[in-house]
């Protein structure tokens, strides 16, 4: 089967061990960050990312080059993250029932202080919506590419992006603008060009 160029102009041969190793080195950091945004926990993100690559490796010889390899990996990883969140939710419901009547423990203040509010906001929305947001706004996929990657229609992706945007807007407004301002100033001093800054 002929090799197909990937998004980053990488070509991969289905079934080739060397090409899969190269795909891992190229895609693992990006897949890990996607899952970290969806799950909000580094250990969970690593676990799901490794599981995704194991599944992909087992199906590598059957990979059809009609979609980029990294998008294919993202699909496996996102499905894995969705399953993980579902099982975590079921466990938390069980835990909640078990602890019914007892006050819920407060969140770790250190974790709250260090965890960016943006990632917290992403974790608060359903994983399918968070995945669409990350693939679009972080990885730069357009709706058609995201639809091909996740195996859904382009219209579904558009709907998910709109729903995610609406939910995130509410969450970010509720979290207030203070954290946003601090991040904005620090980001401008290190990343942004002064000419592109517009006063809010």
């Amino acid at each position, binding site marked *: 089967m002929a090799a197909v160029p990937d998004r980053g102009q990488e070509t991969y041969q289905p079934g080739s061990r060397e090409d899969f190793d190269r795909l891992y080195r190229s895609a693992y950091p990006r897949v890990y*960050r996607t899952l970290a945004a969806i799950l909000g926990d580094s250990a969970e993100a*690593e676990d799901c990312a490794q599981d995704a690559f194991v599944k992909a*490796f*087992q199906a590598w010889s059957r990979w059809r080059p009609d979609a980029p390899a990294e998008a294919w990996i993202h699909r496996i990883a996102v499905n894995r993250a969705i399953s993980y969140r579902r099982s975590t939710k079921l466990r938390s419901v069980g835990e909640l029932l078990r602890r019914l009547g007892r006050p819920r423990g407060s969140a770790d203040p250190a974790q709250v202080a260090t965890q960016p509010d943006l990632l917290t906001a992403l974790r608060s929305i359903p994983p399918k919506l968070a995945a669409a947001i990350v693939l679009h706004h972080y990885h730069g996929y357009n709706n058609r590419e995201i639809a091909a990657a996740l195996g859904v229609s382009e219209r579904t992706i558009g709907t998910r992006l709109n729903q995610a945007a609406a939910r995130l807007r509410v969450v970010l407004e509720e979290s207030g603008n203070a954290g946003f301002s601090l991040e904005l100033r620090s980001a401008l001093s290190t990343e942004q060009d002064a000419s592109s800054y517009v006063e809010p």
Partner: protein
Amino acid sequence: MWNRKHPIAPGFDWRLKIALDRITPPSVMPRYAMARPAFKPWRLAPIALAGAATVLLALTAVAATGSANPVVWSERATSTIQSVGHAPDPSPSPAAGTEGSPSTAHSVPAPAPKRASPPKAAPKPAPPTDHPHESPRPSPGDDNSGPGSHGPSPRPSPPPDDH
């Protein structure tokens, strides 16, 4: 990249990029490198089928030959193939040589009716001999005693008269 009219929030894209770029994935051995390949039982089906066919063939050969020695099987198979493929020789004509011919002094028995089953081993035609008492090896068609039996040699003809 910074846009006040962003559908989510101003600066959302680069905020997200900064937040996620800060996340460094752990450098660990990939799990797939240590995972064993998935077991696919249907790939063993042809091998299992071939093995079963071989065992069945061996059991059949043992039952047919009564021996577990493959050499015996091959010899038996060869002989069977040869006997099936070897056409039986026609029996010699009986009418011409019965009256007074010295070459036919030895009796030529009457032709027996044709038999349905082919002989296992067609006997070679007996060469003419000088010993009238010696009877030729009988062909299966000569014997009236029944199929599959090597009957007794035909009765020798009485010696010719000298006068």
